[in-house]
């Protein structure tokens, strides 16, 4: 099976250390395919957020390269602008990202920076608010909104710029199950429309069920990559990366162990698939 896929973002042996001496990225390489759902797992401080800032051109690698659409990023002003237009980051804490108390002002910032006209910007803002279902709160000040609502605004912020890739830094953290499901729904909807989505998370169950491809980070390096089945059935890798097994795989392996199902049965991808097996 040969599928020619387009690589939209690549990191090649990227080395980066912060001024205080921490080695954030230690010769890291990976490539992101267009239109895919990529999950990045790893402990705090493994280098996930640092890599994201590299993808957006905010940090420049000490060694190695970042490639966008197969071309090395040269960090010229014009090119950086193009990179930031196409790679959007939804930061973990919306209170850190939102700078205006007005929802409309907030979302209009990105499109205006792209040099769009006022009419075009208004269109973009309205569209982004519609997708994120926040049109009803557009006249409210940010500080009177709930955390979940602020999270939606922070996503609309990026959507209004229509980037090719959207990076979500731990999008479901601090959200209750209901809201985190909602946010995930939005992310999937965005992906279905053709946007490549990269998401970092600590939630193995989420990563297992959601991702097309998974990278596991540890100390600024990639210690494992592959589709979710490959990653989460690799006991050695899980132990090394301090990750736990998704519960669906645990139940599946227990079923095989107890002889309830044969080991040739393929691994269930979701809760409902698992229930069908039982």
């Amino acid at each position, binding site marked *: 099976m040969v599928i020619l896929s387009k690589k939209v973002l690549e990191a090649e042996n990227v080395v980066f250390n912060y001024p205080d001496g921490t080695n954030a990225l230690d010769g890291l390489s990976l490539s992101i395919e267009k239109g895919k759902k990529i999950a990045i797992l790893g402990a705090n401080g493994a280098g996930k957020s640092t890599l994201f*800032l590299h993808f*957006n051109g*905010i940090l420049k690698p000490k060694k190695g390269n970042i490639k966008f659409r197969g071309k090395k990023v040269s960090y010229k002003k014009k090119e950086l*602008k193009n990179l*930031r*237009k196409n790679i*959007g*980051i939804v*930061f973990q*804490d919306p*209170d*850190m*990202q*939102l*700078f*205006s*108390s*007005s929802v*409309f*002002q*907030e979302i*209009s*910032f*990105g499109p*205006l*920076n*792209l040099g769009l006209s*006022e009419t075009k*910007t*208004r269109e973009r*803002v309205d569209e982004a608010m519609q997708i994120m279902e926040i049109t009803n709160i*557009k*006249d*409210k*000040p*940010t*500080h*009177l909104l709930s955390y979940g609502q602020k999270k939606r605004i922070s996503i609309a*912020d*990026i959507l209004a*710029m229509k980037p090719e890739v959207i990076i979500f830094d731990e999008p479901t953290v601090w959200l209750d199950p209901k809201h985190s499901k909602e946010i995930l729904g939005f992310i999937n909807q965005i992906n279905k429309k053709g946007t490549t989505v990269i998401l970092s998370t600590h939630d193995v169950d989420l990563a297992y069920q959601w991702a097309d491809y998974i990278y596991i980070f540890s100390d600024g390096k990639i210690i494992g990559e592959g589709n979710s089945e490959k990653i989460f059935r690799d006991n050695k890798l899980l132990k090394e990366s301090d990750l736990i097994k998704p519960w669906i795989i645990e139940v599946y392996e227990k079923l095989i162990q107890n002889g309830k199902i044969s080991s040739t049965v393929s691994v269930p991808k979701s809760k409902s698939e698992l229930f069908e097996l039982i």
Partner: protein
Amino acid sequence: MIDIDQYAYNNNFSSFHPLEKSFFALFTILITLTANSFMTSIIVISVISLMLITAAGIPFKFYLKLLFIPLSFLIIASITAVVSFSRELNNYFFYFELGGWFFGLESKSLNTAVLLFLKSFASICCLYFLTLTTPVLEIISVLRKFKLPEIVIELMMLIYRFIFVLLDTADLIRTSQLSRLGYSSIKKSFFSIAKLISNLFIRAYYRAQGLLTALVARGYDGKIRVLERKYSFSYKNIMIIILFETFLIIISIFGGGNFV
């Protein structure tokens, strides 16, 4: 302060054009201050108070509480303006003597003091009208229309947003200190509040860094460009404002006082 902010977003006038509200408040202040008329001030106080309570939907009790804040200052200032003292007996209509000095009230200065009091009180009502019906954001947008320097506008926008972020942070720190008996004695309270403030500075710095990163990620290049929400003028409101201001001017000229 936080309550005022909440009412500013949730009142029946919130959909009106901010320029209409600002002009109304500012012109009324201007007329009240220039007119030497008791009548004008009394009309302004009653009309604005009635508007706020009945039309805008600001709770009476809350409005009364707000009025009491400047009232104490006003009364003290008026008393000092009205009481005079001297060695000789002037034409006081009320006085008392204390160690060879006469302390008393002159009818002329009483007039001035009452007028001063009413004028200031009416102006305060106008300012309350603006702050209670117009969110800070809209006031900023009005200032933007008046071509205030961009840097001032940006600062106002950021400060307004981060007042609340910082308040939330301070609240969290205080709660965590309280839960560890951080305020159980006066000495501990001083220590805790000092820690809270210094911590807040560090957090503010950290937030500023994070914000800059997030802004740069969206193409920030030194200028914060944003679009304002669109408001439409209402001819009805403009007519009401013009009529009211004209009425005030006429009252000021003919009714009860000389217009300076």
